C-alpha cells in the first residue's frame, strides 16, 4: 500500500507545471518570491531509526524548461534527470537509464521546490506556522499520511528548507541554497 499511496501523491505532484504560484494567497502570505536563478545547491540529510547519525549528501539542482536535474556530488556522484516527465538515473557505468516507476519520486522534489501551493492544496491542508516563515503540509487523505505524515516548507524570502516526516522516525531534510552554479555544473 505504501508505494501505491506514495505514487498517488507523487504522481499528482509531477503534473505540477512548474509555474511558481506567486499569485496564490499562501505565497503572498509567506512573502516568497521566485529566485532569479532556478538553480542552486542542496544538502540532503536522511535520518533513520537504525542509523546513529544522519546520512548526508550534497550536490546541486537545476531547473530548465522541460528538465529538472538533481546531481549528487558527495559522498558519491549520481545524477537524476526529469525530462518530459520521465526519470533517468545514472547507473554505475555512467549511463542514464529511465526508471519507469520513479518519475513521481523526483517529481515530488520538483513540485516541492516550485512550491506550487495551488497544486499542493489538492492533497494537503496548508497552514502557515505562527511566528515562522514556514508552511506545514498535512495530508488530507489518511492513506496518504501513511506515506508522508507531514511536510514542512520553510524560507525567509523563498523556499530554503524542505522536511519530510515519514513513519518509524524516518525524516528527510533538504536545505536549498539558490546560487549560480559553477562552469561545468549543469
Amino acid at each position, binding site marked *: *500500500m*505504501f*508505494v*501505491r499511496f*506514495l*505514487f*498517488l*501523491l*507523487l*504522481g*499528482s505532484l*509531477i*503534473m505540477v507545471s512548474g509555474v511558481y504560484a506567486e499569485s496564490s494567497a499562501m505565497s503572498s502570505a509567506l512573502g516568497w518570491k521566485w529566485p532569479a536563478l532556478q538553480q542552486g545547491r542542496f544538502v*540532503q540529510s*536522511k535520518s*533513520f*531509526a*537504525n*542509523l*546513529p*547519525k544522519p*546520512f548526508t*549528501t550534497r*550536490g546541486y539542482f537545476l531547473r530548465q524548461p522541460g528538465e529538472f536535474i*538533481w546531481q*549528487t556530488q558527495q*559522498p*558519491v556522484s*549520481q545524477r*537524476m534527470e526529469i525530462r*518530459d*516527465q520521465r526519470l533517468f*538515473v*545514472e*547507473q*554505475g557505468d555512467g549511463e542514464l537509464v529511465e*526508471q*519507469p*516507476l*520513479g*518519475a*513521481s*519520486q*523526483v517529481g*515530488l*522534489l520538483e513540485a516541492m521546490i516550485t512550491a506550487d501551493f495551488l497544486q499542493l492544496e489538492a492533497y494537503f491542508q496548508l497552514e502557515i506556522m505562527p511566528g515562522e516563515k514556514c508552511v506545514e503540509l498535512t495530508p488530507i487523505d489518511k492513506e496518504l499520511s501513511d*506515506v508522508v505524515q507531514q511536510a514542512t516548507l520553510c524560507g525567509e524570502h523563498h523556499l530554503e528548507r524542505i522536511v*519530510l516526516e*515519514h513513519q*518509524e522516525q*524516518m525524516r*528527510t531534510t*533538504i536545505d536549498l541554497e539558490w546560487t549560480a552554479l559553477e562552469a561545468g555544473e549543469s
Partner: protein
Amino acid sequence: MWRRTLWVLLPALMLAALVGWWLAAKQGLNSNILATLPQSQQSILLRNADEHFSAQFAERVLVSVTGLQATAAHDALKRRFSELGWLNSDAQGVDIQMLLRFYSRYRSVVLNEELENALGDANAVSRAVFGKLSQPSNPFVSGSFEQDPSLNTAGFVEQRVQAWSPFKTDGQRLYQTDDQDQRHYFLVLSVSHEQQQMGGAKAFYDSLQQHLQALQKTYPEVQYHYSGIALHTAENALQAEYEMNLFGGLSLLGVILVLWWAFGSLRPLMVTAIVILYSGLAGIVATLLVFQQAHVLSLVFGITLIGIAIDYSVHRLTHSNAKPNEVNAVARSITLGFVTTALGYSLFAFSPIGVLSQVAVFVVAGLAAAWLLALIVVPWWLMDRPVTVSPTWLSGARWWCRHLVAWQPKMLMVTLLLTGLSAVWLGFSPLNFNDHIRLLNGSSQQLLENEALHHRLLGGDKTQRFMVQGQTLEMLLETEEQVADWVAAQEDNAEIQRISNWLPSLVRQRQQQQKINRAQQDGDFAQVEELLGVRLDWPEQNWLSSEAVQSSPLKDVLETKVYQSPDGVVSWISISNLRSDQQQMLLTQFPDSLVLYDKAAQLTQLMEHFRQQLLLTLAGVLLAATAVLAFSLGLKPALKGALVMGLSIIMAWEGTAMLVGSLSLFNVLSAMLIIALAVDYLVFYVRQGASEKNLVAITLSLVSSLLVFGVLAFSNTPAISAFGLTAALGLVFLYALSPMVMKGRDET
C-alpha cells in the same frame, strides 16, 4: 401421407433430442482445436499448461483513453468500472511494502544485479549503496532500509517491479506512450467466465460500449480503444447471429421458392430437410459411437454432407412418378455415387490427424443414411402422392438437352483448351496459401485495429513468449536461469520476464550466498558500514523456498506464471528484443525444455498442417473416385470425369485467389464438396445422359447448393467467405463442364 410424414419425422426428432442430450450431458462435443494435434507435437502437460495460461488471457479486457482530458476521463471511467466490479485488482500491482519486508529476510540469497556486479570492489559497492541512498525520495529505500541497510532488498524488488508491469504509472494511473509521445491511460478489466461465453460476452460488450459512449459525451475530446478476447467473442457471436439469420433466411427462402417452382409443392422441401436432418444425425451418432466425443472441426468438415443429401433427394424427387425401370436406374446411379463418394471419404481415416478420421466416419455414416432414405424411405413416403416436375422446368430442360447434345462433341476440345489456359495462368500466378488463424475471426476492423494498437503500446510487437517445462519446480527454475544466461550472452538489449527472477533456484541462491560471504570476508562492505555506522547482518542459509513464496504476496504471481501437475511443471516466460534467428537458436539450444508459446502461430501452423493433409487426401479421393468410376462406367468417362473434377477445382481456386488474394484450408475443404457433387453429376450424366428429369435434378442440386453454400461467399468471416466463394465458382464450372462425360452419338 400425413401418417407417413409423422412416421418419418418423429424418429428424427427423437433422435435429435437424444443426440442433443448426449452432447450436453456427456460433454460429447470437443471444441479444443489444439487437442487435434498429434501427441508428439503437443504433449499433454504442455497442452494443459497452455489451457491454464490461456484462461488468464481470456479474462482480460483492456480499455485505454487518450487525448485532451484523458486523465479526467480515465478517472471517471475507473470509478464507474470499480462500481461495476469490472476492474482487475491484480493489475494494480502487488503490495510493494509487503514484498520489501518479505524479501529482506532472504537478503543473503537473492541479490540485485547492481550490487552483484559491484561485489569484489569495495568502491563499487559503496557507490551502489550510497547512490541508491542519495536519491531524495525512493520508496523502495525507505520501505526496506530498516530491515536491510545494504539496500540489496530495495534494489532487488525495485528492479523486478519495474520490469514486471508492461505499464508505466503516474501514481494513480497506468499508462503507455505512443510514437508521438502521447499518453494512453489504461484500465485493466476482468471478465467472468460467463462474460467470456457467447451470451455473456455480448451483454458485457454492449454495456461496455454504452459506458464508453456516455464518456465520449462528457469528454468529447478523448479517444478510447478497447481490446480483449471476450470482445472478439462478442463481435463474432453477433456477426454469426446476423449472418445466420440473413444468409440462413435467404437460403431457406431461395430453396423454398426454387423447389416450389420446380415441383409446384412444398413437400419436396420437407423431404430434402428430413434427409439432411437424418444424415447429420447419423453422422454424429456414428462419430459418438466410434470416438465417444465428436470434435467440432469434424462437424465443420462434414458440412459437405448437406450438399450430397440435397443431391440424392432431388434425384429421387424428380423421378418419383417415373416408370419402375427409370426409378431403378436412378437408384443404381445414386448407389454408385454413394459408393464412390464414401470410398473417397474413407481415405480420411488414414490421415495422421485424428479429426480427419472423425470426418471419415461422420460423412460416410451420413452418406449411408442419405442413400438409404433416398432409396427406401422417400419412395415409401411419396408412394400415395408422388411429386411431379413442373412443365416450365421440363420444357426448359428439354431446350437445355438439345443444346447439350449439340455442344457435347465440342466440349472435350473446350475443356482441353481451358485446361491449357488454366495451366498457363497457374504458371504466371501460382496458387498462394495463407492459413493464418485470423481467417476464422470475423471481428470488426475497429476491434482489430484496437488490438494492434494495444499490442504495440505494451511492447507485444517486440516480445515473444515461450513455455519452459521441467519435472520439478527446481529443475524448471534452473532451466529458466540457463535460458536467461544464454539470452544475456546473445543480446545486450534483451529483457526476459520469468518466475525465477522472483524465486531463484536453490543452486543460484547458494551461489549468491557464497558471493555475499566472500564479499563480507573481503571487506567489500567496510566503507558502507563505516559511513553509515551500522554492522550489516547477512543471515546464513535462509533459503527462499516455493512454499515461502506460496504464503507471500507473490502467491498470485506464482500461480499466474507456473502450471504444476503430477506430470511436471510448466512456466511461461517472455523475452523482448530478441531477433527471430536468435529465437530459433534459443529453441535449438533447449530442445527438450523450451517451446514457443504463440497461440496464433500454433493455430496457424495447425491450419497449415490440416491443409497439407487435406490436399494429400483430396488427391487420394480424386484418384479413388476416378478408379471407381473407371471400374463401373469405363476408363474413358472416368478420365474425362477426373479432368472435369480437377479443372473445376483448379479454376475455382484460381478465381478465388484472383478475387481474394490467397487460398486457405477452407478453399481445400470446398474442393471436397465439389468432388462429392461431381461424382454424382458425372454418374448421372453417364448413366442417364441428357434426359429432361436428369437435367432438372442436376440443375436443382446446383441451385440448392449455390443457395446453401454460395451465399456464404458474402460472409464477413474470411474463412466462411472463402469456402462459399470457391464452392460457388467450382459448382458453376462443374455444372458447365460435367456434360462432357455424356456418351456421344457414336458411343450410344
